[in-house]
């Protein structure tokens, strides 16, 4: 499925770049992220507990920050698998300055497979969008919490 959208952040482009490439911020913002460990520069292993109502699963994931062009854009490459199924995707993340704010635009292609994709087909896109919304909301909170002192 295609996932795309944009969010406005109250920060400079550099501040937002730092936020989006900081594994601690990412771990705090990603819904259900229990652990995010950098294994190599720009590569992470993650443990995520994701679910909605009774449908809950634990996924082990791998993320990679690909083609970084600080502070403008990078490609987020990720995959996760758990007993309910698997998720694989590549998302282009672009930062643009707008007055004294930064607009984060994302455009991605995500594949969901396994049982959850079959049985949950009619809700997968909606739930994915919802989780992305939660992620960006939390990232905005992270930015606010880090204060104007980000370089």
């Amino acid at each position, binding site marked *: *499925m295609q996932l795309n959208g944009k969010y406005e952040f109250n920060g400079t482009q550099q501040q937002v770049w730092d936020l989006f490439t900081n594994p601690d911020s990412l771990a705090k913002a990603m819904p259900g992220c229990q652990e995010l460990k950098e294994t190599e520069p720009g590569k992470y292993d993650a443990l995520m507990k994701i*679910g*909605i*109502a*009774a*449908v*809950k*699963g634990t996924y082990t994931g791998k993320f990679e920050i690909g083609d970084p062009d600080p502070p403008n854009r990078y490609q987020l490459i990720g995959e996760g698998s758990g*007993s*309910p199924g698997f998720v694989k995707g590549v998302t282009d993340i672009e930062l643009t300055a707008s007055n004294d704010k930064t607009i984060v635009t994302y455009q991605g292609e995500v594949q969901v497979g396994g*049982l*959850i994709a079959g*049985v*949950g*087909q*009619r*809700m*997968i*896109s*909606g*739930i994915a*969008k*919802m989780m992305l919304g939660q992620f960006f909301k939390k990232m905005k909170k992270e930015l606010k919490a880090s204060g104007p002192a980000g370089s």
Partner: protein
Amino acid sequence: MKPAAFEYIAPKTVEEVIDLLAAHEDEAKILAGGQSLMPIMNFRLGRPGMLIDINGLAGLDYIKQQDDYLLIGGLTRERTVEQSSLVQDLCPLLSKAITFVGHTAIRNRGTIGGSLVHADPSGEIPTVFCALNGLVKAVGPEGERWIDPEEFFLTFLTTSLEPTELLVEVKLPILPAGAGWSFMELSRRAGDFAIIGVATVLFMNDDGTCREARIALGGVAPTPFRAEEAEEALAGQMLDEQLIAKAGELAGEAADAEDDYHASAEYRQEMARVMVIRSLGEALARTGKGN
């Protein structure tokens, strides 16, 4: 596949259920009709550590009238509601809608409370609950409270019921004489999940204008919801073809659907428009004040 192992307990009283939920809230799940929970468990999409089987609770299976309301116990089987002449008389909208819930075997076990708590965005019972602006009664360690549809449905499969609460009753307003109603569903086969579900209610003035309209949509958003702009367009007006078409358009625009295997977002949006127009027409005809 088969369910993962779990602890099973079948309490006899609501108090026991609440105590169990409070003690095991992270891992316990209520088993009512099981028509939604068992598929999830059979596929291991969910593995609650404990199942609290409430089918043995007495006193939660009833249908009765209380003044201007129809009260239905949370554990009442959908089939019982379907075959009830009291519901047929006092809430024909629910009687009609419930015939679209799966098939007879499903309705023989599924419960009205379970359907609401499961909160499938395309669920017929949740959609009707929104249209009628009913209430559900939840019982928890703090006591009982009533919840209306707007507060109840949060998102996909998620309600504002606390993990320590049990839904025990559904309270539905009885429509006054002269009110029109309609339930329609679009699905590929009989008994399938709705691609679009529409429940409409029209309250009319003596002069033939519409006093209030209710348009509830299922299957086009993370929860069933009321298309408020479309409803406002009809309030106080004489309902002619043009105005109904306008309401249909507004309802379609309110849809917040995604593409999926069954239908594209555009198709759902367009079908929402079409179904709302048809449903309003049917509801209007039932008021006896149609032109």
